[in-house]
């Protein structure tokens, strides 16, 4: 193995594993669609997995994107995710054990209550941000919802997070730009680009 060329030297992996977690209805699927499209445009092999139906009705949603020269399984194994992108703190924490020891977390700090919280039967974990920091090597947390509302579209959290991922992706910004154009309905392109740029300003390498 030592003599073989590592495909993504920065991550020291041949297949880059990205998990995108959130609440059904937040637009998780568009984020993963854009990342997968960008990988295709970059000439890479890519597999993306998602679930529809019952799971989308306000439940926990996980989308998985695997990028490399050749990808077999569409599913990321536990302990092998390089990047975890969270739309909501509780849903970010739920998948922390999928991260490698060196893995990075980028997440939206805006919480969304569960039905248990809303009916007063459960409490939202008060220390959720500390929990996430404790369980991951690299954490980048910010209020993506505020940025989305700031550009005038509360539903554009997904594009804010695409922007925030930019420096963590092994893909050129120009290509990501094109992937957004290819993936977003034309009439919503302008507002989504604004959200992307707001997120990009948060992106850290």
């Amino acid at each position: 193995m030592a003599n073989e060329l590592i495909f993504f030297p920065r991550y020291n992996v041949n297949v880059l594993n990205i998990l995108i977690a959130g609440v059904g209805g937040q637009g998780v699927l568009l984020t993963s669609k854009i990342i997968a499209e960008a990988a295709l445009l970059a000439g890479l092999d890519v597999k993306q997995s998602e679930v529809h139906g019952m799971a989308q009705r306000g439940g926990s949603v996980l989308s998985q994107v695997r990028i490399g020269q050749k990808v077999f399984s569409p599913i990321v194994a536990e302990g092998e995710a390089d990047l975890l992108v969270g739309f909501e703190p509780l849903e970010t924490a739920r998948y922390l054990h999928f991260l490698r020891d060196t893995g990075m977390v980028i997440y939206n700090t805006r919480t969304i209550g569960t039905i248990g919280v809303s009916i007063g039967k459960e409490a939202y974990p008060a220390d959720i941000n500390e929990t996430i920091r404790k369980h991951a090597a690299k954490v980048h947390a910010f209020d993506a919802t505020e940025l989305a509302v700031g550009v005038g579209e509360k539903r554009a959290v997904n594009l804010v997070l695409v922007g925030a991922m930019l420096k963590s992706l092994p893909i050129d910004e120009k290509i990501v730009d094109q992937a957004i154009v290819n993936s977003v309905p034309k009439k919503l392109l302008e507002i989504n680009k604004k959200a992307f740029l707001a997120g990009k300003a948060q992106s850290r390498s």
Partner: protein
Amino acid sequence: MKKAILSGNEAIARGFIEAGGKVAAAYPGTPSTEVLEILSKEKGIHAEWSTNEKVAMEVAIGGSLAGVRSMACMKHVGVNVAADPLMTVTYTGVNAGLVLMVADDPGMFSSQNEQDTRHYSRMAKIPCVEPADSGEAKEFLRQAFELSEAFDTPVILRTTTRVSHCKSVVETADPVIVKDRDLARDVPKYVMLPGNAKKRHLIVEERLIKLREFADTTLLNQEIKGTGELGFIANGVAYQYVREAFPDAPVLKLGMTYPLPEKKIRAFAASVRKLAIVEELDGFIEEQVKAMGLVVHFGKAAFPPCGELTSRLIRDAVTGTPLTCKAPVPGLIMRPPTFCPGCSHRGLYTILAKLKPYVSGDIGCYTLGALPPFGSMNTCICMGASISAAHGISRGLAIKGGEHQKPVAVIGDSTFMHSGITGLIDMVYNGGDALVVVMNNDTTGMTGGQEHPGTGRRAGGAEAPKLSIEKLCKVIGARAVREIDAYNLKDLEKIIKEELATPGPSVLVSNQPCVLRYRVSSKPYTVDRATCVGCKACLKAGCIALSFVPEGKKGYAAVDALLCNGCGICAQLCATKSLVVAK
């Protein structure tokens, strides 16, 4: 040739176009829905949402008889509904190519069971092809049509959630020109009177022998050379997991899982010291391989028949030394699915939770009414069962004697069209005594919002005659048929109470459009802190836009303005009128 990243379902739709398919019929069902959604936007193809899977299968059979390549699409449980035509069209064979595309749901992401469709291919004695990714999904559909026409047989193309809903790179091509066939006129072949069917059954058995020979020569089944003493036989997405876990091992990849390629399997088994068979759900391949007298070292005893497999699970089972991995973060509360803020089903369940009748449920978003805080469902079996089961319950209770108890059936508009109507006719005809609530949100909600005969639009959006549920129920002869605004709690409670007290079959149609499909959004509500007494009555609405903020001895309710859709259900539950529309 162009490269695109497509889901398995998108690739199947693309494959249908490229294979010159002309008639496609389906009933929505996760994870199969997108195939027909895409085809409905194509010119030169008749793509329809049929009222149910049996109808879809028969429409596709008709398309084949007419002489054009045709396909029916459905989820696994839909095949139960379509099994009747399937089991006989296998006798008649096809005219133009006929494919049944079925999506199974291992892990039950959005299903009530995880039955394995491959058993149907064996029962019908027809080929089953199984792609392992989107590229294969497109290619295998084309081959399925060729196979169908070459062997005069319907063909099942089976996917699973991870094939249908995973995206991978696909090379698209131009559509082939397929010559349409003449309308089929051949009474002994297509009219299944017993005398004809006896002759056709013999042909089915002969066809199966030829298909077994084909299985041994087709490139649908391929051996991937490798090293090591352990060889794998795998199908569908399980093949990807095997390659991920054991990249260097020899693998016999089965793209056609019925009938099996016996010679290839025997040769492969002889070439390795140990044999593993990796398949999701049932040991369908394994049982047949064992029946060949071969020894299987790793099969269902190692890889469970319940839920999905993963590369990790396969690796751990074979090596016997599980890799250590981190434990999930402890103490996290769960996030089960729930009604959307503004959902028109919320009001009804708020009332049912209060009145506590016996509720017979059905398949759709509204099955979530079984969960907290409503807990308002006592049984739910399959599409359409709500009404017929409620009728059976009422008859059983009546025979037992005792106090009059009228059960409630809850069913969505699309499910009512699918198979609720026959149940209602049965109940009226047989002197039943249940209240049927048709929760009409003007769409097929759970699968993402598809048209049906009650929406007044066809697949693709073209205008269609709009079937009135209310009028239909009246014609069927229900004792009472009443309509109501699903957001009006007071009237809902009053009418349900009245109808539960009056014997005889009655129907209540509660109307409000699906907020998700139609993006309905009114001004959000807010809580007047000055008058809120913290009684938590509003929380009974079970809405994630609501929460309770403890403060001192009590506290107050709060509304998340970004989530609230302004339906006003919570405000109707508030005794102090503290929930008001935000300024």
